[in-house]
């Protein structure tokens, strides 16, 4: 039980600034670290226990290319052909083009699972084929070496007789439901409300381009405050819950968006004080002034509004999409087919 330092070598990493997954190679195991702000959770896969690595090619690279490419091209067209101020459109277009280039450079996407005797776990840091192949080149010999004293697995595989084609496993929930391993029910209602609210917030921010009156401004401000509270509550609730990591990341990103909005509001109030010194003694006047600001008043406000619209829409839709898997099938659940077989 002595405390000894284990040297790890980084193999892959994916995620954002505040929450990310990383894959590390230890002396006798692989380690997945899930880092969320100020905490790290680890999972180990010992070389001598790994039974199989399953790799699936996916088409997410094309989806990302579309998501970055289309808005980029549209912004470029508006910036160059439209009669509005071109700078924010060109900046937006440049950023979209940058992300598109990074996406194309990183190559095709994939999903990788590691299977052991008791579980089948998605290796989240491995999302690109290029990185996956490098990791496999490094790890495969180590696994083979760790299992050198075991006989080859392939002859023992019990594939149904005459199964030249793949056969579908029984539907989930069918049969002896009471003996089936069931993952804990996860309540995602709050997160759904939050992501839905983000989409609505994007729409409200879009309406601000055309509507600028006090009642609407107060309503929009209250709505943003509601989203802030929702975000904080969702962040508090998601700790130790079964909500998938992607949804957790979207929630953290929502917090970043909220912080951006607060910081922008703060900067706008300072700017208003500087340009209208008479507001120093009149807080309601300042608030009214801030509410009646339209994105079309200033190029920076327009850029900020566009950023908020895109970010809120992306986070809302992305978050809702990430929660879909809670309906379909639980992530990282134990290998159902195998456990069902054991139960039988």
């Amino acid at each position, binding site marked *: 039980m002595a405390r000894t330092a284990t040297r790890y070598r980084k193999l892959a990493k994916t995620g954002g600034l505040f929450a990310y997954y990383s894959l590390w190679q230890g002396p006798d195991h692989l380690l997945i670290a899930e880092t969320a702000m100020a905490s790290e959770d680890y999972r180990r896969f010992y070389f001598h226990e790994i039974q199989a690595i399953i790799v699936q*090619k996916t088409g997410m690279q094309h989806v990302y290319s579309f998501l970055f490419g289309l808005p980029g091209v549209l912004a470029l067209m508006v910036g160059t052909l439209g009669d509005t101020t071109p700078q924010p459109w060109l900046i937006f277009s440049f950023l979209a083009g940058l992300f598109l280039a990074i996406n194309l450079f990183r190559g095709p996407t994939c999903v990788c699972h590691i299977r052991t005797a008791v579980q089948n776990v998605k290796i989240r840091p491995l999302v690109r084929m290029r990185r996956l192949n490098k990791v496999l080149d490094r790890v495969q010999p180590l696994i083979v070496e760790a299992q050198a004293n075991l006989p080859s697995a392939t002859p023992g595989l019990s594939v149904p007789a005459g199964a030249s084609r793949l056969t579908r496993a029984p539907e989930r929930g069918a049969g002896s439901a009471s003996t089936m391993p069931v993952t804990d029910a996860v309540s995602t209602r709050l997160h759904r409300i939050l992501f839905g609210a983000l989409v609505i917030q994007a729409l409200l921010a879009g309406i601000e381009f055309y509507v600028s009156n006090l009642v609407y401004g107060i309503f929009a401000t209250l709505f943003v405050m509601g989203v802030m509270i929702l975000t904080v509550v969702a962040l508090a609730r998601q700790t130790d819950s079964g909500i998938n990591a992607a949804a957790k990341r979207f929630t953290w990103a929502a917090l970043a968006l909220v912080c951006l909005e607060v910081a922008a509001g703060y900067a706008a109030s300072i700017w208003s004080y500087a340009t209208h010194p008479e507001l120093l003694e009149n807080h309601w006047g300042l608030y009214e002034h801030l509410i009646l600001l339209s994105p079309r008043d200033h190029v920076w406000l327009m850029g900020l509004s566009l950023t908020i619209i895109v970010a809120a829409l992306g986070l809302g839709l992305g978050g809702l999409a990430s929660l879909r898997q809670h309906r379909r099938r639980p992530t990282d659940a134990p290998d159902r087919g195998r456990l069902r077989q054991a139960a039988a």
Partner: protein
Amino acid sequence: MNITCSNCQAVLDAARFDTSAYGNCHSCNLPLRVLTFPALGRPLPVGREGASLRAPRTASCYYHTRKQATVVCTACGRFLCALCDMDINGQHICPSCLETGRKERRIKDLDDHRTLYDAIALAMAVLPMLFFFVTCITAPLTLYIVVRYWKAPPSLLPRTRVRFVLAALIAMLQIGGWGYFGYNLLI
């Protein structure tokens, strides 16, 4: 020992395993590749029962006095029967040490969570600068976190203490700034 498609749970054909090319899953048609290893053919380990004491002078299990000791706990040195022997990656641990070791994070193989106090300190030093007036509270707090958790178990992964140092520097600058502001106010 069947391997299922991780997308649709269809059982995969063994003929498709260990090939360099990607084949399509019959059920969901996703291109996939399966690499198998010898552990796939190994049966699941079966739980063992402790053997009864046969001779009076034989060492007995610390927890089951009627069972024969087969191994010594790596952590505490107690004799253990086969039932109490917990094999943790080659180490033989008794249930008591397993529980204690997990709680106190002495068994590295069971350590599955760490709190990154350096990240907390750095965030507490940097983020409040957006609203500078709260730094008069957060700067001393940051220094407290740096001092209190300087020796706390760090991440299992390679990581230096540079965040702690940065956080302390920023917090000291903030405290210095407030001190200067207060001094000017008094003068």
